[in-house]
């Protein structure tokens, strides 16, 4: 066990082989440290599984299991059922990428939710099949370049839209479903903590930039995810039993171009007229989401400006009471 840091558990610790600047590694580290080591983690196949459990070396410091790509929610159902019958209250957390959530894993996820298992399902959404080399997924946004949605003479990247998975999940009479991103840690923290207080199935979709797949500078993972929210392309919302109960208001709406520019996966949109049309399309999608969730006016706890801010001396971190522990 690695106990270098007395202020957090390092449930996901160092030595993992994620790419430099990996948003998923960051998100998973945040979530698992907030949930803590007294939980059972089930991982779908994907980057997170590969880079944390490489060849007899594990970066996990909590019970963790990986089975196959599609079945994480079902394995978690079984784990939770076993704990329930044994009278144990150990939290169960699923971690999956967007493939394991939106696409191949959706059936098991739907079953898990429908059956009401007391499981937190966390989707680290990096908007493509990154582990296999950046192929398009159901989560890939419109007009994105991936290796299976390449721009060409007759194409401007992915032709279809990003699947609205949070609405699909919420439609299950879901006790709690929320979107979050690494850029707004206080918001992410509040959502994880809220999710952990609720019994039954819970779902978090965390936008986790991938410097490799999105083709942005590794240092920009946080700022890119921030811009996804600030442009309205990735609204941060909470839904309880299908009803919208929380929205991150935008302090100001930024043009989508600010988000798209630093990312190579949108580069082709700036190359010609046809790309320009898709730029306007993406702006329209952002505008529509802003209207749909009333992102500019809704009355909420915090907005994109205040959610960034915290205080001196450990302001953005884990609360000392919950994380400071005796080093074993």
């Amino acid at each position, binding site marked *: 066990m690695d106990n270098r840091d007395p202020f957090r558990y390092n449930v996901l610790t160092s030595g993992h082989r994620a790419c430099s600047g990996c948003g998923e590694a960051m998100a998973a580290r945040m979530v698992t440290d907030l949930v803590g*080591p007294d939980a059972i983690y089930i991982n779908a196949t994907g980057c997170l599984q590969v880079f944390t459990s490489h060849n007899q070396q594990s970066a996990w410091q909590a019970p963790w299991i990986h089975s196959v790509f599609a079945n994480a929610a079902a394995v978690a159902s079984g784990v939770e*059922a076993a704990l329930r*019958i044994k009278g144990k209250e150990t939290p169960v957390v699923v971690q999956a990428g967007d493939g394991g959530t939106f696409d191949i894993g959706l059936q*098991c996820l739907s079953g898990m939710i429908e059956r009401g298992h007391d499981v937190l399902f966390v989707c680290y959404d990096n908007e493509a099949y990154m582990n296999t080399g950046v192929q398009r997924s159901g989560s890939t946004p419109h007009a994105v370049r991936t290796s299976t949605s390449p721009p060409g003479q007759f194409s401007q990247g992915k032709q279809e839209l990003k699947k609205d998975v949070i609405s699909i999940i919420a439609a299950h009479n879901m006790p709690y479903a929320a979107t979050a991103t690494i850029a707004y840690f206080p918001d992410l923290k509040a959502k994880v903590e809220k999710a952990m207080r609720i019994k039954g199935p819970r779902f978090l979709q965390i936008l986790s930039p991938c410097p490799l797949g999105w083709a942005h500078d590794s240092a920009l993972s946080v700022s890119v995810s921030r811009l996804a929210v600030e442009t309205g392309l990735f609204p941060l919302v909470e839904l309880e039993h299908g009803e919208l109960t929380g929205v991150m208001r935008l302090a100001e709406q930024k043009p989508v171009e600010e988000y798209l520019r630093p990312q190579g996966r949108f580069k082709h949109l700036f190359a010609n007229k046809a790309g320009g049309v898709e730029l306007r399309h993406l702006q329209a999608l952002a505008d529509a989401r802003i209207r749909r969730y009333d992102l500019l006016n809704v009355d909420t706890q915090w907005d994109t400006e205040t959610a960034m801010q915290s205080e001196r001396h450990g302001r953005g971190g884990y609360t000392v009471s919950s994380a400071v522990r005796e080093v074993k």
Partner: protein
Amino acid sequence: MKQLLEGSLAVAEAVRLCLPQVVAAYPITPQTHIIERLAQHVANGELEAEFINAESEFGAASIVLGAVAAGARSFTATASQGLLLMTEVLYNIAGLRLPVVMICANRAVGAPINIFSDHQDSMSVRDAGWVQLYVETNQEAVDTLIQAYRIAEACGLPVMVCMDGFLLTHTFEPVDLPTQAMVDGFLPPFQFSRTLDPVRPMTLGGASEADNFQEYRAAQQAAMEDAMPVIEAFDAEFNEQFGREHGGLLQPCHLDGAETVLLGMGSLMGVVRDVVDKLRDQGQAVGALRLRCFRPFPAQALARYLASAKRIIVLEKAISIGAGGIVAAELRAALHQAGITTPVESVIGGLGGRDLTPDVIEALFQKSSENEAGATFRFAPDHKSLTRQNEEAMNNG
């Protein structure tokens, strides 16, 4: 005390007696009656377990995977398409070395879709790393299910109990159901060393690379080989406690001095047994050998049993399309390795629920190998045409 029970219900009672804590399944004919009964037991409080209605067989297998990994004895059942939908997870359960027990109510695999019994489903997943035990009767299904948990948990291997759909699952037979105390005396409480538990965190199912993957497979193979004496020993121990045994790996029938031996699996062997008795009564030197344990494949035991046979017939209810009989091919390899050159006649029959009547079996014993030139197998004669032929022969005679 024997009770007249439908096979599904009998085996469901056996499952109940093993006290699984999690039962997960997805309905599919002909397995459905098993889990329906278990659902009722849970609903009635007769079985203290979580009954999970999975969204698919893939999900069901995954649920029992998770449940066993979390330290709960678990059960699932399926058949046919459902088993194949589980395939990826079956390999995974075996690779994780989780002691899962399931029943496969053997059924044909489509297309064309067919709900009746053959062994194509379980034979198709023979390489997944599961122990496969094929039962002949409902009583054996009950007893083998109880043994299966003991084997799985002792060997760290998943066990699939294969019982023929309809022929067993939907057939009423007198069955001696053991008492809870008897089962408890045979089957210790669930124990599993690699339980997901924050008290002792561990990583299960991590990624492996070329420099150690083969060792994982070698370890599974070794575990399978080690399981053979265990299966035999537990059958013997079961016999001591319950007064019934089922042959361990192989169950011979009139092998003494048998020149022609028919080898097969599952319920068809009941018919074979009758035919052998009849032919023995007629003075023919025939015998039969029931392959109860297909995985691990008891190659050496088979060679011992068949060393003196002059003629060997393998009748099986599955086909490796493009190759032929599966058991036959493996048997040929086993005999060859043992230096036995007796030809093995490969016969495939009973597919999609077609009857293997005494006439058909007898015909196999009577007619020697008449494979078309170059063919490694032949299909069993159709029982209806055989009946017609027999009637014509009778009329003509």
